[in-house]
């Protein structure tokens, strides 16, 4: 695997902002180009090809979550606390998409295109169905980041991944609260997942395609089986 050194205009810059407005300010900093970036931060970080693959993998998951929550809001079936939580979920995942996209650009890599996602026909029919599916997505997001973190070489990319991973963990808790799961925060050691486990968990939403490029294509039946197994904690 080729190991090349690239100027990273501050992965933390992307990991920090709390609001969209802050984020665009960060983008402006990044967009000022290599000269400005090196003046502001004057440091280098190495990004291995592996890191790019991992960031693209994470980006795909964030696309999936962002799409799902945007559609959930469009469905107009949410109200009260659930609406407030999902509005933030949609906003956070969209910010993660932007942050990862920009992080990839900043290391000279090409972000993956957003895949076409498919959701079960009744996924957006009620608040309960939305929350139920959300509660299956979020632990996958946590597991993916926790599984990937030790594989990341660049400390800046690792810092960004950690920052996002923690938010996915918060999402699990917020959904537990809405779903009346007590205690809301109930894991001393949230679990890491392998690439294959994550791929299997999200394959049903990607037309049965495995996430990793060149991976085997699953039949819808097999994809469904894997997803059920995942949901039952049997993967």
């Amino acid at each position, binding site marked *: 695997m080729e190991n090349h050194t690239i100027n990273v205009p501050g992965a933390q810059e992307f*990991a920090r*902002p709390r609001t969209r407005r802050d984020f665009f300010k960060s983008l402006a900093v990044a967009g000022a180009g290599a000269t400005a970036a090196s003046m502001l931060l004057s440091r280098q970080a190495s990004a291995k090809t592996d890191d790019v693959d991992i960031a693209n993998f994470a980006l795909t998951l964030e696309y999936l979550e962002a799409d799902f929550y945007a559609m959930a809001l469009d469905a107009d079936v949410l109200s009260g606390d659930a609406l407030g*939580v999902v509005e933030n979920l949609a906003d956070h995942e969209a910010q993660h998409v932007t942050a990862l996209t920009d992080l990839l650009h900043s290391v000279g890599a090409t972000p993956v295109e957003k895949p076409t996602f498919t959701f079960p026909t009744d996924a957006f029919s009620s608040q309960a169905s939305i929350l139920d599916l959300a509660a299956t997505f979020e632990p996958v997001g946590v597991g993916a980041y*926790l599984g990937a973190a030790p594989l990341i070489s660049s400390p800046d990319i690792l810092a960004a991944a*950690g*920052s996002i991973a923690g938010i996915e963990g918060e999402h699990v808790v917020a959904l537990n609260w809405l779903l009346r799961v007590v205690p809301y925060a109930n894991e001393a050691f949230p679990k*890491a997942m392998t690439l294959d486990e994550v791929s299997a968990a999200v394959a049903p939403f990607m037309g049965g395609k495995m996430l990793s490029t060149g991976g085997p294509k699953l039949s819808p039946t097999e994809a469904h089986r894997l997803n059920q197994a995942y949901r039952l904690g049997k993967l």
Partner: protein
Amino acid sequence: MSEVESRTPLGMDREVSRRNFLKTAAWTGATFTAMGIGGFGVAVRRAEAQGEYKTYEGLGDAAILQFAYQLELLEGTFYAEGVKAGLFKDAFLEQIVAIRDHEMAHADAIATTLGQLGADVPATPQFTFPNGTFGNAATFLELAATFEPVGIGAYQGAAPALQSKDILAAAISIHNAECQHRCAINILNLITPPNNLAFEEALPLQKVQEAVKPFGITG
């Protein structure tokens, strides 16, 4: 007499406690402003956003874990005292008990890892808490809301400085548990929606040390 002074499990020296209380009282007010719900200002965050992990580099994995161990004990002790004080019931109590157990499980796991590394497990510090911390649920939860971001910031800041990938895997999992605690404490503080951050924040070592010093962690 403060709540804490009357509690033998903390092993309090009364004179030490009184002295620390004065420092802590001043510190707590500042902390609620700087690290509470409002968080750091953008300018401050921007200034501190440059490679927090570098402040942990050179410590080595064992020293990072020894510090983390004390943070976990501080948190675990804090939640244990909250449970004992009878401040909560029902779902709130279940959550505080769960967090207490998580923090103690983190401390145990870290102690085991330190043993495997052949490093010393630090003695339990003499923890001190501001007067009235355990007097009512609101005060307790306000302090909890300041503790969790310190733990989050410490793990997130230290993670890229860890040498061992196995220890990193454990640390990033514990970090995630702390983030989950932050959101749970928001729920107990009736903050809606409780998932109110898009990105978690790393803290440089010095900020973490300053934040926990008034509570008795001097390492």
